[in-house]
Each structure stands twice: as structure tokens, then as C-alpha cells.
């Protein structure tokens, strides 16, 4: 065959390949369309619409007067709103910190214990740890309000029974205790999720690595600290981000255990309950809610979440680049 023919064949092949590429790309787009439509209609549109609402003022659920950034100015200059906003923000940070400290640390501990193949009854423990996560927050919240009830609750009676009656408290009525107590209840409920994720991460670590370490004379603690923990880093990252997103949107457990006002005295008021009161329910039983201001709070919540998640993504990429993966 002459060179000319060869080039022609080559060109035809190239063209065919290009055409196939275009076709394949079209098919991809086709596959994406349903997801994009669902995402646009149910996620993107409401999100942008609520941002739009934050620039409006009015009495109903759809405020109609354009006011620019007046809602934001009001939120940050009126001491009344500003104090409640920063109070809610502070409480949310505490709520998140307790989850990171208690829920995720316990999750890691449980996962380490459960990954031990010699542990008897592993499946039972795993089921027990995961069980609360399958219940509705309203149900567990209500159960815990009964347990913590100072008059007929189990906890105080238990304390009195073992001679520690002096420790009995109106747990949910004390402004200093209510938020930590509710955070612990929430940690108890959701500890199964990080446990499962850490367990899955631990099970992917190859036995050869662990065995090699043991042969080299590493103690169990060194194996955990030097080998397992570094290899778990990606999972820890994901668990932290999920906890962050979940906690900064948390509403149900506070609503169930302390009401929409974050009682007592706003001490358990989170961003989401503050938003709910401002935008939907109103400050007191006959109050008129302020949807525009509420939308401004929702937008700020979104920005906080966006900043947190972006930070994680950026840090994650830098780390990946360093390790060359």
C-alpha cells in the first residue's frame, strides 16, 4: 500500500474515532439529563430562590418588596437579632465540637474494637451500636426527655439509687447543661454511622502491613497510631465533613427536646431553630414571622456550610498532590 492510502485510512479511522467520541459524549449527556433536571428543580432552584427571597421583605410566606441587603443589615446591626444570631452560631459550634469529640472519637474506638476478628459477638455489638441511628429523632428525643425528666425520669432515680443523689439535676432546664446534654443524646443516636464508616476503612487496610509491623516489633498502640490512623485519614475527613454539614443544619433534636425557642432561655438555640422561628413560626405563639429575614439567615447558613466544605476540598487536594495520588 502506498503512503497516501495509509494516510487516508488513518484519517478515516481518526474521523470515525472522533465521531464515536462525539456520540459517546452525547450519550453521556443523555444519561445526565434526568439527574440534572431533578437537581435543578428540587435543589438548585429552591436554593437560589431562597437567596433571592433574602433580598425581599413582606408579611407572608412570599415577601414581595425588594429591599436590597436591608435584611442582612438588620440582622447584623439590630442588637436584638445580632445577639440571637451569634448566640445561635456559638451554640452550633459547641454542638459540632461535642459531636466531633464524643461521637466521632467513640465511633473510632468502637470501630477499632469491632475490627478485631477475635472479638466474640461482633455482629451483636455492631447491631446494638447502629440501632439508635435507625430510629426517628423525634422518638429518641422524646424518650430522652422522659429519661431526663427531673420528677419521674430514670436518670435521676438511678443516681439516687446508687447514692449519688447530689448529682441529680433538672438536666434540660439548666442553661449550662441543656446544650451539652442534648449534644450527647444526639451523639449517642448517631455514633453508629461513623463507627460503620471507620470500620469499613479499617477493613480495607491489608493484613500484610499490620503483620509486617508486628514482625518489626510494633506494639498494638503503635500499630494503631502509626499505621491504622494515617491510612484512615480520608475516612476521618469524610466523617468530619458529614458531621459538620449535619450539625450546622441540625434542627430536629432541639425541636424534640427543647422546643423551637431553644429553651431554656435560648441556651440550646441552633442556627436552624433560629431560622425556623424567624422565618416560619414567629417568636411567640401569636407572632407574625419574617420570611425575608429568615431567608437571609438561611443564606448565611449555606455560606458557612459552603466555606467549610470548600476548605475540606482544598485541603484534601493539597494533601493528595503532596502524596502524589
Amino acid at each position: 500500500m502506498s503512503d497516501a492510502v495509509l494516510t487516508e485510512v488513518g484519517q478515516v479511522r481518526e474521523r470515525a474515532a472522533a465521531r464515536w467520541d462525539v456520540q459517546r459524549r452525547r450519550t453521556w449527556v443523555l444519561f445526565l439529563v434526568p439527574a440534572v433536571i431533578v437537581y435543578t428543580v428540587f435543589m438548585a432552584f429552591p436554593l437560589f430562590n431562597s437567596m433571592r427571597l433574602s433580598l425581599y421583605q413582606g408579611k407572608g410566606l412570599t415577601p414581595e418588596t425588594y429591599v436590597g441587603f436591608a435584611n442582612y443589615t438588620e440582622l447584623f446591626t439590630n442588637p436584638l437579632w445580632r445577639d440571637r444570631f451569634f448566640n445561635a452560631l456559638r451554640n452550633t459550634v459547641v454542638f459540632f465540637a461535642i459531636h466531633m469529640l464524643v461521637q466521632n472519637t467513640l465511633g473510632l474506638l468502637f470501630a477499632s474494637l469491632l475490627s478485631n476478628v477475635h472479638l466474640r459477638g461482633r455482629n451483636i455489638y455492631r447491631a446494638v451500636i447502629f440501632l439508635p441511628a435507625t430510629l426517628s429523632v423525634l422518638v429518641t428525643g422524646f424518650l430522652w426527655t422522659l429519661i431526663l425528666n427531673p420528677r419521674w425520669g430514670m436518670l435521676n432515680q438511678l443516681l439516687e439509687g446508687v447514692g449519688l443523689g447530689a448529682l441529680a439535676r433538672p438536666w434540660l432546664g439548666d442553661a449550662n447543661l441543656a446544650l451539652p446534654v442534648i449534644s450527647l443524646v444526639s451523639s449517642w443516636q448517631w455514633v453508629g454511622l461513623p463507627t460503620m464508616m471507620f470500620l469499613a476503612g479499617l477493613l480495607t487496610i491489608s493484613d500484610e502491613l499490620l503483620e509486617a509491623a508486628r514482625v518489626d516489633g510494633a506494639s498494638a498502640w503503635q500499630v494503631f497510631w502509626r499505621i491504622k490512623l494515617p491510612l484512615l485519614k480520608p475516612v476521618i475527613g469524610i466523617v468530619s465533613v458529614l458531621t459538620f454539614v449535619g450539625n450546622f443544619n441540625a434542627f430536629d433534636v432541639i425541636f424534640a427536646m427543647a422546643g423551637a425557642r431553644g429553651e431554656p432561655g435560648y441556651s440550646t438555640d441552633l442556627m436552624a431553630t433560629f431560622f425556623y422561628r424567624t422565618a416560619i413560626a414567629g417568636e411567640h405563639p401569636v407572632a407574625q414571622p419574617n420570611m425575608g429575614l429568615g431567608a437571609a439567615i438561611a443564606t448565611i447558613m449555606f455560606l458557612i456550610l459552603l466555606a467549610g466544605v470548600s476548605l475540606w476540598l482544598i485541603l484534601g487536594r493539597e494533601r493528595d498532590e503532596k502524596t502524589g495520588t
Partner: protein
Amino acid sequence: MKVKFALLFVVMLALLSTSALAQDSVVQLTMGSWRVDDVAQMQVILDAFSAAYPNVKITFDPTNPPDYNATLRTQLEGGTAPDLFYLRSYATSRQLYEEGFLEPLGDLTGLMENFTPEARAPWATDDGVPYGVPFIAVSHGIYYNVDLFNELGLEIPTTWEGLIEVAQKIKDAGYTAFANASGDEWTIAEIVFMNLAPNFIGGFEGRQAYLKGERCFNDEHAVAAFQAVADIAPFLPEGQEALTYYDSQQLFLLGEAAMWMGGSWDIPFFESEEPEFAWSVFAVPAPEGQEQAYVTFHLDAGMGLNAASTHKEEAKLFLEWMATPEFATLLADNLPGFFPISTNTVSLQNEHANTFLSLNEGRGLDVRWAWEGLLAGQPDGYTLMQNGALAVIAGTQTPQEAADALQDGLAQWFEPAQNCAK
């Protein structure tokens, strides 16, 4: 086969058209409300109305209470609001009228004759143009356990000081005096503080003096009202910081607490929960040396007519019917604890409701303090009074500090409070 189907189709069409014809002569109205608990009871009342006016049928369509104000407004703005709907008293519905959503009712037959000006005021302009028919009032008082009072040999106290003495005796006997608690914060605002306040600020006249700026919200009377909250604080149940409304009810029902400051709307609850339980109610007594006593008889709900309704004439038939003794009797008997506001005297079948109503005799009546005028700005009077009373109970504020906080908060937006006599 086909013939059969065709026949069936014709029959169905005929049925549909006749029912449509039947509906033509009956006007369908809807009624909006926040009382989701009252569906069955309101049905009895609405059925009685349909019996009297067979060509009008009203459907009761309530909304979850916390969402009611926002939902109603959205419906009104979108043109899908009910023809008739419950109105909150004072500012909340005044706003609706000022924006043209409510039909003025000045020419409604029976409205002027059957209701006093004071009763119409929560749903009328300052010039007295009514835009709602007064509908439901709730009363407040102190529930007490009759058997326990007899056992301890206690008399119904006639002065505030006497009440505190009685509370002390109950506490000494090993019982809780008051079942009230701050676990649900609104209860401290509505059934403790605003229940006792009229006796200390001088009822309607005293309250008006605040609204006109003749008194400051931290004057001696307001301080005395917060002091009264401080007086009962030692007699609340142990762990009251976290006990809820429901816990309080149970403490009273179980006989662990001898008294409960409460509202008349709980009559059906106590009667159905424990029919054998012997309880009654007395009015919050006035402080020693004060001859005039007061009862918080709160005008809670009115009925409004949607200005955009297509069946105003038929809806007005219902509103006029609301002024009749027949309606008042039906309301009082079906919803014991919710009192009709019209001047038509009705005898109540429910004994407890009668006791509650008898507290009004010889006493001055007034609505809850925060409702008129004090809810229209931020921080609102309701939240300020609630936070103040809670702080006094918790011991974090003195009564004077709580009253000062009320004055300072209201002075941020409420003109009379800014210019009040120092």
C-alpha cells in the same frame, strides 16, 4: 357488553349532573382556624347552622397553630383564603384589616347590639369600625385540689398574702403548692405572669395607663407583678426548670401538687383524663387592702370575613348567627372553657365552666397584658414579660431588674414607653 357500558356511563352522567344541580342551590363556604383540636366540636356547631340555613354549608379547615398566621397571609395574598376565618385579637388582625383583606362589618345585624364596645375593641379600629365578630374568650384562675384542701383544712384565700400563707401550709405538709413549671416557657408568660398581673397593675384602666404613656413599664405596679412571680417561685415543684406543661398537669392530677395556675381551655383535658378527680377553681386574689380584684378574661379569637370572598352575603348570615343566644349556648356547651363573648346570658351545662365564669362576678375583666399594642414591634412585650418572669423565678433578676428590662426593651420602639412619665 358495549351497550351495558354505555348505559352505565349515561347513568353516571345523570347522577353527576343531579348532584351538581343539588350543589348549585347550596353555597359552600370554608372556615380557616388554628384550632386543630376542635374539628368534631365545630362540626356540631356548623351542622346546627346548616339546619337553620339549609342553603349554606360551611367546611371547617384548620391549620397547625404555629403556621396559622403565615399560612393565612399567603392564602390572602394568593386569593385562596377561606371565606371566613378565625382572627387573633389586636395587632395581628388589625394589620390584615389595614391592608384590605378584611371586610368591614359596621352594618352587620346584631353586632352592635349583642356585644359591648370593650368586647368589640380587639377586632375594631380605633374609631370603632368592627372587622371581626367577637368569638371566643378564655379565662384564667387557680385550679385547686378540693380533697387536698379539705384534708389540710385550707380555706380559699381572699388576699394574695393569704394565698402565699396557704402555699406555705401546703409545702409544710409535704406537698407541692403550685404545679407550674418553666420547662415550657410560654406557660410562665401566659398562665402565670399574665394571669396574676391585672391584680397588681389595676386591670383594664391600669393597663391603658401604660399604653397611653401615663405609666412606665418599670413603675411600682409592674415591679409588684414581677414580685408576685417571685413570691410563688419557692412553691414551684422541684426540678421545675425542666418540667413541661404536661408534667404540671400530671402533678396536679396525681394530687402531688395542690394548686395550678391555669386557663379555662384545660377543663376538657382534666375532665376526660380523670373524671373522678375533685377539682375546682378560684380567682387570683388581690393584694391585701386592695378592694377591686381582677380576672384575666382574655378575648382570644374573633371571626373575620374575607374581603375577596365571592359569597359575602351567605358568610354574613353565619356572622349574624354568631350574635344569637343559640350560637352562644352551642359554643359554651360544645367547647367548655371557651366562653362566648356576647351579652346574651347563657347558662352553661358544664359545671367547671360555670365556676370559671362565676369568677367574673364583681371583678374587673381584662385581656392578657402583652396583647394590646405590645406585640407590634421588636423586642415584643410578650417575649420581654416571659423572659423577665423566667429570670425572676430562676433568681437571676430581681423584680425591679425584670421590670427595668421590660421598660428598656419596649422603649426601643413603643412610643408611649419612650415618653412615659418619669
